[in-house]
Structures are given as structure tokens and as C-alpha cells.
């Protein structure tokens, strides 16, 4: 019943890969995490949004369950092979949820986080940014460009988000590979400017 996977180079890592790095892509629902991860990932983004009703379907109109559509969302999960030795994993998460153990595992060893924001719903990004700050995860902010969204001067967005002067703020289009890559580059550049000890990647709890 289970056949061996087709030898698809896209599924498996190159045999030479020795190092896996991890970056988080965080933001509220519908801010563009899935699109962002999907745009960059070489594998189809691994993501669950399975309706749980399928598994638990109760067709016999059982009281209390019928018609209830429960879905689980979503650790968007993408992969970029950066060199023969190095692979980068992107984990997208709503983050504004109270921290769970999986979040912890995701965050542990992460180089940093890219916060995706939407100017029309800026306050929905506040909580996750606060959490990243509380837990010492360095981040950059990328305002995902939505058509029809009003544009604001960068300074005003910085003021609204109460960003540190050094925290990068970029505008990106999550659908565009180049634009999304640039946002990540900006994040990594920022991480470089911090001293090596600040990167949580080296810390193990």
C-alpha cells in the first residue's frame, strides 16, 4: 500500500547538506505567511488545514457534533536549499497564540523572525511582536503589500510599531520571489549586525 517515494529531487535534501538553519515567519491570520513561505519554498509548503470533520465525521446526526467544522491550522513550513551544505527552513506561525510547546521547539534554534504585517490591520501584529521581544527573538518587520491598502510613510509605521531604530522595516510582496527573498536578506543582514552572542541560535536550553 505504501510505495517508496518517487525519487524526486525536490522532496529530499541533497546528500551533501550538513546544516539546517531555521527562520520564523510570524504574523496574524491572513497576513500572507502561507504565500510568503510558498513563494520561497522549493517544496510545496507543508501545512495543515485539514478539516477535522473529515476524520470525525458523524453522519448520523449525532448530537452536538453535526455540522461542526473544526480545522487545525497551520504550521506553514517551507524549505530552501541555499548551498550544497546548507538548507534553510522557514516556519510560518500565527504566533499570536499563547505559546505552546511546538512554538517553543520552533523558536529554539531559530536565527530570527520575520514579522509580516498589514497596515490595514496593524494592531493584529502587536501581540506577536511583543511575544518575540519578551522571548528575545530578534526580528525584522516586512509590511506585506496588499493592493488597496493605504500606504504610510515608513517613519509613521515605525512609530506605530514602536520599532527600535536598528530594527529593519521593509515593504514586500509575499507573492514575489525576489521581493520575499529581499525581505529575508534584510533580516539576515540585521542578524549579522548583532553580536554572535545575541543570536539565540547558539543557545540551547
Amino acid at each position, binding site marked *: 500500500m*505504501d*510505495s*517508496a*517515494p518517487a*525519487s524526486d529531487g525536490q*522532496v*529530499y*535534501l*541533497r*546528500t551533501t*547538506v*550538513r*546544516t*539546517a*538553519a*531555521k527562520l520564523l515567519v510570524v504574523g496574524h491570520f491572513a497576513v500572507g505567511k502561507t504565500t510568503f513561505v510558498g513563494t520561497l519554498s522549493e*517544496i510545496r509548503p*507543508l501545512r*495543515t488545514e*485539514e478539516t477535522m470533520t*473529515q*476524520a*470525525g465525521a458523524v453522519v448520523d446526526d449525532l448530537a452536538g457534533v453535526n455540522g461542526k467544522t473544526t480545522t487545525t491550522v497551520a*504550521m506553514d*513550513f517551507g*524549505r*530552501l536549499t*541555499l*548551498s550544497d*551544505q*546548507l*538548507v*534553510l*527552513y522557514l*516556519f510560518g506561525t500565527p504566533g499570536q497564540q499563547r505559546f505552546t510547546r*511546538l512554538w517553543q*521547539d*520552533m523558536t*529554539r*534554534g531559530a*536565527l530570527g523572525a520575520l514579522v509580516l504585517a498589514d497596515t490595514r490591520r496593524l494592531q493584529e501584529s502587536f501581540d506577536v511582536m511583543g511575544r518575540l521581544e519578551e522571548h528575545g527573538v530578534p526580528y525584522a518587520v516586512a509590511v506585506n503589500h496588499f493592493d488597496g491598502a493605504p500606504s504610510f510613510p515608513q517613519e509613521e509605521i515605525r512609530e506605530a510599531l514602536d520599532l527600535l531604530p536598528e530594527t529593519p522595516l521593509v515593504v514586500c510582496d509575499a507573492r514575489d*520571489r*525576489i521581493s520575499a*527573498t*529581499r525581505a*529575508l*536578506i534584510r533580516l*539576515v*543582514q540585521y*542578524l*549579522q549586525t548583532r553580536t*554572535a552572542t545575541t*543570536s539565540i*541560535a*547558539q543557545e*540551547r536550553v
Partner: protein
Amino acid sequence: MTPSRKREKGLVRPYVVTDGRAHPTRNTFDLVTLVIAATDRPLSGLSPEELRMMRLCRPGALSVAEVAGHLALPVSVTKVLLGDLVDSGHIITRAPVPAAQLPDAQLLQEVLDGLRARL
């Protein structure tokens, strides 16, 4: 009867999959720990999930998160099974971000170079 392509989730409960265990025999798995299957081990005696894991991991390396995702198992359950398979020599791990060997700055530079190369 149209054969379904999706495994029925929730039929076999995780405690049956792990035989009641919740703790991996080793605490070395991160979401991005890379694993690959050894090709010289007999597959007899493995549980269905372990077999699926071996079949999945034989052709090449994958991260723990990918293995969990492909097999539709919780990450924590995946780690228990992977721990067993490492113990029995069926699975070989490659450490995630070997921080001790690779200085942060160097890793960041490599990531940066890799990203720039994609532009």
C-alpha cells in the same frame, strides 16, 4: 468502491503507534534535525509507522518536521519513533545547526550568500 488516497486520520490512536510511550529514548531531535534511513538494516519487526518512516527516509535526508508532516503524525510522536529507529540503527541523524562547530557569524554569512544567490 473508489479507493481513498488519504489515510484515515484518527483511526489508529497515537498511543498504539508508540505503544503507550511519550518520551523519546533520546532527546536529540529538533524540528530541523535531518534524518536519513540506513539502507543495510532489515525491516522485519518494524511497526507500520516505522516502516512508513523507513520508506520515506530511504531515498534521502529530511528534517524531523518534514517526516512528521509527510506521515501526518504529531511531531512528538514522530520523535518517539525516530528515537527507536536511531537506537536500532535504522535511522541516522545529522545534527541541526551544529552551533558549536559553526560560528553564528559564519552561518549567517552562508545564509546571506545563499539568499543573495537566489536573486
